[in-house]
């Protein structure tokens, strides 16, 4: 009898169990408990939610371990935490603390502007952002067990998440219809591992789950992303920056489950109070676009 931890199946399988669910950003134990009670499938422990990171400026790093520990002890659902892109040590620290999933995230200031972490080396699974099939395939190639759209974090504006989800889906359809000899040139064009593209062509889908993230602010936004083929959603600033986080969190969870039940979504959307204010993309300076921090 053998006993193997950290296998590809165990790491990808963990993300499969999150499907159809909502993962919520939290900054303390109290918020984590609200998220769990509302039906979140996991929480993301952070020092600041993306909209506050955006407002604060400067270098955003891994959260103070005190916060991550507080959240780990507060809930029984899985706890994710963010490490800077390429920051091997932040990731190792989070793994050592017992985080259930690490988000190598563009929301934090990248530590390496060339290389991502070689995630296959780790026992803990990773989620990474992607805007297109090339990025998705490179992250999977590095060992990511789960993907999410990058969107534009902390804006409360869904347009970029929609763009990224549609782009990935459209490129998957494209590769599915290619002949084998076309795939190599396509792999070269988008910078994707050839063998992985062959698998995607065969299966008609990515080998890992792909959630929506970056700009989801209402129950309808969450349902829209599910409609477009997301396996689940991350909600960052949207919940705890709203007027009534408890109600908001529950509504987003139910809208994600029943994303095609429009009467229900209408009910869920009533009297929610004001959603987060939101940012129009054209007002963002190039340097403020978190999604462009890596490829």
């Amino acid at each position, binding site marked *: 009898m053998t006993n193997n*931890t950290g296998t590809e199946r165990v790491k990808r399988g*963990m993300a*499969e169990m999150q499907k159809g669910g909502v993962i919520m950003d939290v900054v303390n134990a109290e918020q984590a408990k609200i998220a769990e009670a509302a039906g979140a499938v996991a929480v993301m422990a952070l020092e600041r939610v993306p909209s506050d990171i955006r407002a604060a400026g400067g270098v955003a790093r891994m959260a103070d371990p005190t916060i991550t520990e507080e959240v780990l002890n507060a809930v029984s659902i899985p706890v994710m935490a963010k490490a800077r892109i390429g920051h091997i040590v932040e990731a190792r620290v989070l793994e050592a603390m017992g985080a259930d999933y690490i988000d190598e995230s563009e929301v934090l200031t990248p530590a390496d502007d060339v290389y991502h972490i070689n995630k296959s080396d780790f026992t803990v699974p990773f989620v990474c952002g992607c805007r297109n099939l090339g990025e998705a395939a490179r992250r999977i190639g590095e060992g990511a067990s789960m993907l999410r759209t990058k969107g534009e974090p902390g804006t409360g504006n869904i347009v970029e998440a929609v763009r990224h989800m549609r782009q990935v889906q459209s490129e998957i359809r494209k590769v599915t219809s290619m002949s084998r000899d076309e795939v190599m040139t396509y792999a070269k064009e988008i910078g994707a591992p050839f063998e992985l593209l062959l698998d995607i062509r065969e299966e008609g889908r990515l080998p890992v789950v792909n959630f929506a993230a970056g700009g989801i602010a209402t129950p309808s936004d969450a349902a829209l992303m599910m409609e477009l083929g997301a396996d689940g959603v991350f909600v960052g600033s949207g919940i705890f920056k709203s007027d009534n986080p408890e109600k908001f969190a529950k509504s987003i969870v139910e809208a994600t*489950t029943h994303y095609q039940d429009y009467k229900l979504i209408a009910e869920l959307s009533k009297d929610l109070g004001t959603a987060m204010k939101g940012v129009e993309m054209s007002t963002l300076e190039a340097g403020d676009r978190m999604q462009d921090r890596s490829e």
Partner: protein
Amino acid sequence: MITIGVLALQGAVREHMRSIETCAAKAIEIKHKEQLADIDGLILPGGESTTMRRLIDSYGFFEAIQQFGKQGKPIFGTCAGLILMADEVEEQVQSHLALMDMKVARNAFGRQVASFEASLDIKYAGNDFKAVFIRAPYITKVGPKVEILATWQDKIVAAKQDNYLCTAFHPELTDDNRIMQYFVSMVKQREGSPVAAEI
């Protein structure tokens, strides 16, 4: 052909659907309790048990699933599904559907970094079964009616009680369909029995 439903509120639904179809049964996703009338057996998939429970309550599934079980129709729970089926949950005041006379511990093998694969021998399903344990529970205590089907390092990880079947691991994440085949046979057996005809 028999029809097996997968409770599709949250979790690994697609994998179970594929597994059911591989075993030559019809698979449908169950999102509303009224659909329970259309199926011969039900699967409670893996996912987050707290999330699923909340959604079970929101959509009136709680009594509907218990009723489904009381009619003698087979129910199969994997991981979170097993937790939902237990009479008692360690460190929790309340259990969930309380279908099986057993006590379970959640995340009993540890956090995600401790998740593992192991080879198991499972009664009725066969030997050398590749079992995938993800933040898995195990059964800490069983009543007299519960039959233990598999253990891993002395922990109970698969069990059966009358029309109820459960595993702490995820058979749906591998291509080995032997446990699903056994569940399909449980459903077929009931459909062919005189008891089923009376109800």
